[in-house]
């Protein structure tokens, strides 16, 4: 790959997918440090591999699938710690973004969900995937995905007293 093309491709990948990988991996891991490592690993592989994609949707699905695999692998480590301080989470996000109290409530509620619930809710309500698509991406049955979303919504509704869910 030529130097200009390499720069352009890296720029495209970061601008298009870095935040998606961050959000999805954070929903699994609740650690921005690990999410950042996974973002770099996934994008580097994409940058150097000779994988052909038939469409941008195909490329995005590949990224989501790879991110889920990477997160699951990381979670399997005996050394992995899920404990992360809230202020560390904020280090990575745009410093100009403003947080209000209600956002912290949502943040705390979402982060209290099991990781599978968080990721399914993220893929449904943020990325707009259908249950069937989520089932394919996460290698689960559609029934399991629907249950995770339904139960996750119930938990959020209970915790946020129906205001946000």
């Amino acid at each position, binding site marked *: 790959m030529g130097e200009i093309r*390499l*720069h352009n491709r*890296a720029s495209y*990948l*970061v601008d298009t997918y*870095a*935040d998606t990988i*961050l*959000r999805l991996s*954070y929903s699994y891991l609740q*650690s*921005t*440090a*690990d999410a*950042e*490592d996974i973002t*770099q*690993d996934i994008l*580097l*592989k994409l*940058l*150097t*591999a000779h994988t052909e994609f038939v469409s941008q949707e195909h490329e995005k699905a*590949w990224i989501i699938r*790879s991110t889920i*695999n*990477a997160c*699951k*692998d*990381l979670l*399997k*480590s*005996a*050394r*992995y*710690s899920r404990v992360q*301080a809230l202020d*560390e*989470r904020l280090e*990575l*996000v*745009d*410093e100009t*973004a403003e947080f*209000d109290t*209600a*956002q912290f*409530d*949502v*943040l705390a509620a*979402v982060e209290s969900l099991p990781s599978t619930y968080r990721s399914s*809710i*993220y893929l449904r*309500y*943020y990325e707009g995937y259908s249950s069937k698509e989520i089932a*394919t991406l996460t*290698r689960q*049955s559609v029934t399991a995905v629907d249950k995770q979303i339904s139960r996750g919504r119930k938990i959020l509704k209970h915790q946020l007293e129906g*205001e*946000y869910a």
Partner: protein
Amino acid sequence: MSTYQDYFDNLHYSDQTKQKMKGWLVEHARTTHINSAMDILELKPKAKHHSFAAAAAIVFALLIGTSGVAYATGNLGRALTFIDTVFNGAPAETRVVEHIGRPLDAQVSDAGITVSAEAIIGDRSSYAVIYSLEKDDGTAFDTTTSTAPYLPYVMDNALQTDDVALFARGISGATGESYFFDENPDDNAIQYVEKYNLMSENASASIVGATVNTGFSGLLHEDDQGHMTPIAEGNWNLRFTLDYEDLSHKVPVAGEKFSLSQCEATITDMHISPLSLSFSYVADSPAYFDDEPSGKMSDSMAQESARLLDCGDIVVTMKDGSTIVQKDMGGGTIASDKSTCQKNQFFDSIIDVDEVASITIGGTCFEVSES
């Protein structure tokens, strides 16, 4: 009003971080070999499992080395083992026959498939468990494959490292790989292998004798395009004792120097087994990074870890003159003194240690004595 959308909207990289990431990607795309690291992350059955050290392994290793996390040994380790037994019952017994652990009665049937833990082979820092899968109706699995000798199957929930077993034994982290193959085309069983590489700053830490809990939740078939098709959705939970004969063979070392990418190192210990090569060394100049207990790997830490842990190509020379080249991806453990390093490397296939003549690391040849 805040919503999920707001929650995720606010979780994004800053422009400055994105710029840094672009630069990092370009730099590493030029120079790095990433395939092996991602092989582990993806856990796909690959025809090749070359040098395996994943970036993730470095992260975990550095966490241990710099944050001073206590090991779960001694009383805590025993307590963990006790709690595990109380909640999960007694494990299946394992007998060691001719170096190989043979779990007895570690077998479970669900969704028309019986999964059995058949054999365990290992050394002091790594092990492999071989499972067999057999259809209860006696029919055979489709063993058509374009990645021979590996079969295009994936086990859901593969490589579920057993936290209790590992921590109780003083092991602080693990990486692994898995794949399917067909040991005997004439029967209706296929075999599934999980290989683990263990990390610990504690030289005496060992997994031998630990009880492991393994749980699989589905068997999938992967086509050439990477699409997964469920073959069976079941729950195969196995619990057995990880007994095997440690096949490590000590390689005599006497403080020889060898070259890392940017400094020299002194070898302190080396073991080879049919499964893996492990060695320890002290770098001439320590890593320069501050303790980062949160686990975040800064750029400088990543560079320093690469400086100390990247040993380049490791060459195993057999007595017949043939060689096995293991590409080192820089994984390993840096101890809390920031100079002492430990590395474990799986071989791509089982090797006959008796036929190994020497091992070359960083330009220095280490002769392997007769076992």
